């Protein structure tokens, strides 16, 4: 009986402890908190093999989820992977460690187009990990007319054939682009200005999905949509009938970065990991598994011509792209306007 109780107690304690606590004392460990499906396990294993640093990889599905866990303080993370607008907010609040660039010689591999951006102009606090865009996917078997912008997607004839991201800020930004307003001027006045346009869009949408918008397209339940480029790249690899176009009015470029939260216990290890993934031969491995836009110029050279031809990973031409900025309190208004309009279009 006591043995059973002891077993149960041990089991409960083991389950409650954060992963990594069981690691032998003395072994160096690194607590990495990153997006799910973004860092190949092989890359982590090879890093451990080379450096003897044990990596505890925890995953999250949204920036906000990451922030909630980061500030709960339950685990001291050494590396996080926030998107550009979250980097800006974190820097503003003094929540990130300044990077020691002497420990990251491979930083030179980052392409010039990923430097000098407003969220962290000199890459003092963050290093671009992977990047992507939000654009239009079309099943060309079903949609024969050219679709080049937001207005082309939201047409009456495509009613109930459209999938879009379930992301209020994205939707508002598309409307700002369409009305010719600056995409980061997410103010009360501008939200009011684009409200009628969004109200005309939402009743046409069949599926809202941020997690896997490719599913509805692959299943044939919808014929076009506005989705993450990574999803579009996978669709394109699956079947070339899926084309990817960046809206001519302008599109969102998101950049996910590696950064070290303030007070991280293993800053040296975090720097080592950043420098490791910036090696071209490592970075290209990530690209092969997750076909986003690689900001690492040297790694891109190692891709096959076919991989570089994937229009969703490396859009041709000179598209108009903007990163997101931190919009502070106005995020509440964005959430409210989409909730309101969805409620109207649904009832």
């Amino acid at each position: 009986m006591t043995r059973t109780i002891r077993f149960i107690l041990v089991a409960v304690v083991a389950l409650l402890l954060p992963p990594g606590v069981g690691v032998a004392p003395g072994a160096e460990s690194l607590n990495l908190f990153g997006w799910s499906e973004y860092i190949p396990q092989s890359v982590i294993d090879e890093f451990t093999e080379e450096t003897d640093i044990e990596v505890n990889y925890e995953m999250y599905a949204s920036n906000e989820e990451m922030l909630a866990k980061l500030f709960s303080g339950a685990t001291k993370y050494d590396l996080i992977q926030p998107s550009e607008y979250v980097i800006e907010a974190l820097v503003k609040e003094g929540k990130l460690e300044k990077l020691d660039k002497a420990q990251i010689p491979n930083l030179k591999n980052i392409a010039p187009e990923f430097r000098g951006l407003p969220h962290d102009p000199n890459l003092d606090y963050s290093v671009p990990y992977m990047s992507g865009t939000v654009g239009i996917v079309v099943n060309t078997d079903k949609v024969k007319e050219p679709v080049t912008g937001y207005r082309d997607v939201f047409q009456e004839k495509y009613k109930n054939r459209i999938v879009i991201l379930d992301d209020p800020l994205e939707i508002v930004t598309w409307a700002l682009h369409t009305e010719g307003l600056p995409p980061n001027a997410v103010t009360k006045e501008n939200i009011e200005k684009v409200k009628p346009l969004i109200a005309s869009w939402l009743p046409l949408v069949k599926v809202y999905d941020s997690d896997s918008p490719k599913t509805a397209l692959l299943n044939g339940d919808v014929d076009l949509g506005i989705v993450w480029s990574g999803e579009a790249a996978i669709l394109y690899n699956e079947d070339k009938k899926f084309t990817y176009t960046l809206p001519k009015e302008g599109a969102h470029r998101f950049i996910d970065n590696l950064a070290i939260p303030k007070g991280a216990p293993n800053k040296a290890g975090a720097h080592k990991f950043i420098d490791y993934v910036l090696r071209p031969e490592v970075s290209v491995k990530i690209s092969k598994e997750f076909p986003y836009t690689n900001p690492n110029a040297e790694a891109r050279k190692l891709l096959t011509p076919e991989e570089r031809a994937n229009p969703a990973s490396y859009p041709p031409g000179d598209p108009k792209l903007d990163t997101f900025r931190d919009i502070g309190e106005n995020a509440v208004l964005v959430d409210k306007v989409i909730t309101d309009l969805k409620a109207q279009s649904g009832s």
Partner: protein
Amino acid sequence: MRQESTAFAHAAAGQQRPPGGTGWLLLAPLLCWVVAFVVAPAAIMLVYSFLRRGTLGGVVWEFTLDNYAAVADPTYFAIIVRSIVFAAITTLLCLGMGYPVAYLIGRASEERRNLLLMLVMVPFWTSFLIRTYAWVTILKSQGLLNSILLGLGAIGEPLELLYTRGAVILGLVYTFLPFMILPIYSSVEKLDGALIEAALDLGAGPLRAFARVIVPLTQPGIAAGVLLVFVPALGLYAVNDILGGGRVDMIGNVIENQFKGNARNWPFGAALGTAMLVAFGLTYWVVSRRQRAVEFGR
């Protein structure tokens, strides 16, 4: 005979006696569990609902009633009403389908009963999300159901089944049906067959016997089933996202967005959660009062 009745009286009195030292010791794990996982989170939620939004999520310790003012907004009211309607339809369908099943299982022979009960529980061996995604492959336009119907020549064009309200209700009923069957079954199992025979002997038709004898006697099971289905159906939003395409928000979606979406508005999410908790409390209070009234009225 006399001895028996005193023993019974003792046992009955024992139930009324407040628990002694050992009793509290035995209760301690449950009490700890309730405090840690029910009372404490609810208290945190209540406190947060009166605070201001923090820039990076979290809260700023400044008292405000703004969050409750925002809850009263007509949009959220409409969303709450819609969630209640969906949960109510789900509960009624579960009751209508679950009661006959529970009754048949409860009246079946012992060995068949165990087999049937196991069949009710088999779906729980697979993750709820996987079972819900399985419905996607059944309902999609080139899915199983449409292919069968097309193959049989019953329809000329694939039906639009997925990403509809019907699909959401189907998913909810599918998820919660066992929660209706099991408590009703346990009531039916205890049902005394002699009482039904007596009702029939005294001239009640089968319908009347059902309505006046069987239903009142299985009422505890029905009440438990209704609560077990209605309350979680109100909060479950995953089915709405997966089978409904997220076209309309349920109250669960709105609350989730306050924590995991761009808004990062924890206090407002907490206020919505508190409002729902109060609504649940009221429902439970009304149901249990009615039940007590029924018991004493007899």
